[in-house]
C-alpha cells in the first residue's frame, strides 16, 4: 500500500497520545494510602515521569522517522555505521535517568527494612487458608514458638515452657486490630506453605515462609477497616484467604485488647498443663527475623 506511512504514523501518534491520556484519566489508580509508606508512592510517580518522557520521545521519534524517511524509489539511506559520540551521550543520559530512579528506591528500601526502636510487635500467622494473630500481652514480649508443638489446643505452637508466651493474646478467625499512629513490627510466620500478608492501603507486603520468621513494619495513619489478602499463591483456596484489619484510636484498641483471651487462659480452658512441652528448637522472633532459627 502506497500510503501505508500515513496509517502507521497516525497509529504511532495515537498509541502515544492514547497511552498518556489513559494514564491521566484512567479511573484506576492507587487506593488511598493508610500508612507511612507515602515515599514509595512518590518514587513510583517519579519513575512514571522519567520513563514516561522516554516512552513519549521514542514513540514520537519513530513516528517522525516513518513519515520523514518513508520509502522513495531510487532513494538511498544515509551511510553512517556508527556515531560513537551520540552513543556515549545516550548512554550517559540513560545512566543519569537510572540514578534518578534508583537513589530514592534504595533510600526507601533502607527505611523499609529498618524497624524503628520501640516499635510494637504483633505476629501474623498464615495457614491454608486463614489468618491468625498473636499479641505479646502485658509483658510486651512474644513467647517462642515451634511448628512441632502445634496441636488442637495449642494452635500457634507456643512454647509452654516460656513464661513470655503465657500472657500472649491469641486471635483466631477474627480481625487484626492496630492502634493509629504507632509504628508496629509485624512478624510473619506460616506453618504450611508460602503466604503473603498484604493490605493494599498499607503498601507493605512480605512473604510468609514456613520454617522462618519474616517481617514488615509500618505506622497506620488513617482510621478505618481494610482488607487483608494473601498475595502468594498458596493452593486452591488462595483467593479466599482473607481477613480484615481495624485501625483505631489507642483507647478503642486497648479496650478491644482487654476482651481477648491469653494463651494461658486458652490452655487452662482446655485442661492442659503448662511448662510441659518437649525441648525443641524454637524460633526466637528477634530482630534478625529473616534469619532466625528454623524450627525442628
Amino acid at each position, binding site marked *: 500500500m502506497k500510503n501505508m506511512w500515513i496509517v*502507521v504514523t497516525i497509529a504511532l501518534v495515537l*498509541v502515544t497520545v492514547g*497511552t498518556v491520556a*489513559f494514564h491521566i484519566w*484512567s*479511573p*484506576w489508580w*492507587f487506593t488511598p494510602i493508610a500508612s507511612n509508606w507515602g*515515599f*514509595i508512592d512518590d518514587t*513510583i510517580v517519579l*519513575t512514571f515521569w522519567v520513563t514516561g518522557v*522516554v*516512552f513519549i520521545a521514542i*514513540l514520537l521519534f*519513530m513516528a517522525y*522517522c516513518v513519515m520523514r*524517511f518513508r*520509502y522513495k524509489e531510487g*532513494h538511498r*539511506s*544515509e551511510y*553512517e*555505521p*556508527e556515531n560513537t559520540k*551520540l*552513543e556515549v551521550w545516550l548512554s550517559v543520559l*540513560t545512566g543519569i535517568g*537510572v540514578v534518578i*530512579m534508583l537513589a530514592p*528506591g*534504595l533510600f*526507601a*528500601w533502607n527505611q*523499609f527494612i529498618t524497624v524503628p526502636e520501640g516499635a510494637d510487635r504483633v505476629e501474623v500467622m498464615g495457614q*491454608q487458608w486463614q489468618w491468625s494473630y498473636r499479641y505479646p500481652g502485658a509483658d510486651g514480649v512474644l513467647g517462642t514458638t515451634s*511448628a*512441632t508443638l502445634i496441636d488442637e489446643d495449642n494452635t500457634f505452637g507456643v512454647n509452654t515452657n516460656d513464661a513470655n508466651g503465657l500472657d500472649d493474646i491469641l486471635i483466631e478467625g477474627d480481625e487484626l486490630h492496630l492502634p493509629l499512629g504507632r509504628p508496629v513490627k509485624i512478624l510473619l510466620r506460616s506453618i*504450611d*506453605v508460602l503466604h503473603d500478608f*498484604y493490605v*493494599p492501603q498499607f*503498601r*507493605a507486603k512480605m*512473604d510468609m*515462609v*514456613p*520454617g*522462618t520468621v519474616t517481617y514488615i513494619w509500618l505506622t497506620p495513619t488513617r482510621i478505618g477497616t481494610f*482488607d487483608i*489478602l494473601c*498475595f*502468594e499463591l*498458596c*493452593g*486452591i483456596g488462595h*483467593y479466599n484467604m482473607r481477613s480484615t484489619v481495624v485501625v483505631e484510636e489507642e483507647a478503642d484498641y486497648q479496650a478491644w485488647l482487654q476482651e481477648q483471651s491469653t494463651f494461658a487462659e486458652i490452655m487452662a480452658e482446655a485442661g492442659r498443663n503448662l511448662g510441659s512441652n518437649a525441648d525443641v528448637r524454637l524460633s526466637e522472633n528477634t530482630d534478625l527475623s529473616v*534469619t532466625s532459627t*528454623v524450627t*525442628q
Partner: protein
Amino acid sequence: MSTTTAPADSDLVRPAEVEEVELYHAKSFITKYIFSQDAKVIAIQYSVTATAIGFVGLVLSWLMRLQLGFPDFFSFIDATDYYQFITLHGMIMVIYLLTALFLGGFGNYLIPLMIGARDMVFPYVNMLSYWIYLLAVLVLLASFFVPGGPTGAGWTLYPPQAILSGTPGSEGGIILMLVSLALFIIGFTMGGLNYVVTVLQARTRGMTLMRMPLSIWGIFVATVLALLAFPALFVGAVMMTFDSLLGTSFFMPVIVEFNEQLEYGGGSPILFQHLFWFFGHPEVYIVALPAFGIVSDLISVHSRRHIFGYRMMVWALVGIGALSFVVWAHHMYVSGMNPWFGFFFATTTLIIAVPTALKVYNWTLTLWKGNIRLTIPMLFSLAFIVTFVNGGITGLFLGNVAVDVPLSDTMFVVAHFHMVMGVAPLLVVFGAIYHWFPLVTGRMFHQGMAQFHFWVTFIGAYLIFLPLHYLGFLGVPRRYFEMGDTSFIPESAATLNSFVTIVALIVGFAQLVFIYNLARSTTKGKISERNPWQATTLEWQTPQVPPGHGNFGAELPVVYRWAYEYGLPGARDDFVPQNTPPDQVMADGGGEVEPSPQPAE
C-alpha cells in the same frame, strides 16, 4: 578499531584450512523428513510442534480470561481448573513455545544458513534434540490425563505448596511436570551445544564473529545463557521430585498441613526460589536476545539501512547476557530472603537498563535517515519496539526494590511480563516468520490476511495489557480465581476485565487467520521472487530457493563484508550481499572503495 566494521577489508578472507566434512545424505522418506538430520527439517519440526503446543497455551488463556472477565457465568471452570490453566499456560508459553521456537526453530534454520555452513556440526545429536523435546511435550500433555490433573502450582512451581495436597495436581501432575522439564532440558542441551559449536567452528571463510548478522549473535548468546541457566532448574526439578516421591526435605521445613504434622523438616523453600530464578531470569533473556537479534536484522533490511552501531549492538547483547546472571533475586524482593540482598539486586537490575536502552535507541536510529519500506515484517518490528519500550520501562518499577513492594504479585506484574516477554517477542516471531516465509517455502504469504493479523494482534495486545497495569496499582492480585467483594476495588474493574476478555478472544481469533494464511500460502501462495526483500545475508544467496540439502552449491560462499551493507555510496545497488566479490560492487564496475563516512573513534 574501525577495521572490525569496515566493509571492505577483504584481506580477512583466509584460504580454507580444512577439508569439508562429508554430510549425512538421507535416502528414504523417513530419514529425510521424519528422523531427519537436516537442520532445516528439524527447524520446521521444532516450529510446528512449538506452535501446536502454543495453541494449547492460547486456548488455556482464553479459558482463564473467561473466568476473569465473567466470573459468575462459566460454571464449568472451578478453582482447580483455573489454577491448572494459569500454570500450564505460563509454562507452555515460556518454555515449550518461546524457548523452543526461538532456539530450536529459528536457531536451527538460520544458524547454518546465515553463517555459511552446510548444516549443524552434530546432525545426529540435533535430531535427538528434537525427539526428546517432543517427548517432553507429550509428557506435559499426559499430565492432563492423570488422576488429579496437571499441576496448579503456578508456573513458578514454588514448594512447599507444589507438592502438598492443597494444590491441584499434587499427586501425578507435578511429577509429570518436573519430568517433562527435565526432558526438555536434556533435549535442549543437545541442541544448544550444537548451536554454540556450529557458530564457533563452522562459519564460512570471511565470516568473522564481528561480521555475523545480529540474529545469529542473539541466538548464540541466548544459547550460552540457556546452557548455563537450565542446569539450575534441572537440579531444582530433581530435588523437588525427591521431596515428593522419596520424602527428602530439600525444600521442606517442618509443616503442619490441615492440623497434621508432616514428616518433613529442615529444608528451605527459598532455596528453590533461588534455583528457579537463577534459571528464570536468564530465561527472560533466552527469549529476548534472539528477538533482539532478529528484529535488528528485520529493521535494517526493511529500512534499507545498515544497523546503527553494530559493535555496540553486539556488546550490548553480550553485556545483557552476562548481567542477566546477577539479577535473579529481583524476583524475590518480598520472598523473605535476607533484605540486604535488595540493595545489590536493585542496582544490578537497573544497570541492565543502560545496554537495553541503547539497543532501543539504535533500532530507532536505524530507521532515522533510512528508506523505510512498511512491509509486514517492518510493521511487526515497529510494534515490537512500542511494546518492548512499554514493557521495559515497567521493569524499572519492578526492579527498583522498594517500588516493587506494593506492585509485586499484582496484575501489574502480569501486565509487565506479558508485554515485555510475551507480546514483544511474539511480534518478532510473527515478523520473522513473514520475513523468512518466502525463503522456507519459495512462496509469498497473503498480504491482506497478514495486514489483518498485524493490526488486530498489535492493537489488541496493547489494549489487553496496558490497562492491566492499572489494576495492579489498585491492588488487584494475580492468581485469584475470583476477586469477590473487597473494600478497595471499584465496580469498574470488573467491567475492564470483561473488556480485556473480549479483546483477548478477538486477538486469539486473529492467530487462526495467521495459521490459515501460512498453511494456504505454503501450497497456493504466489511464487516468490528470489531474495524478495533484497537482503544482504547469506541465507538469501543460496543457489536453490528453498535452500536444498547442504544449503549451498558445490562451493561454500566466501564472505567479504559485514551483514549490513545497505546504501553504500557509489555502489551499483542499494544493498551488497555479504558474498559479492569486491570487484562487482561499484556502479562503475570498479573495485570497492573504502566507504566515506567511517565511525568516529
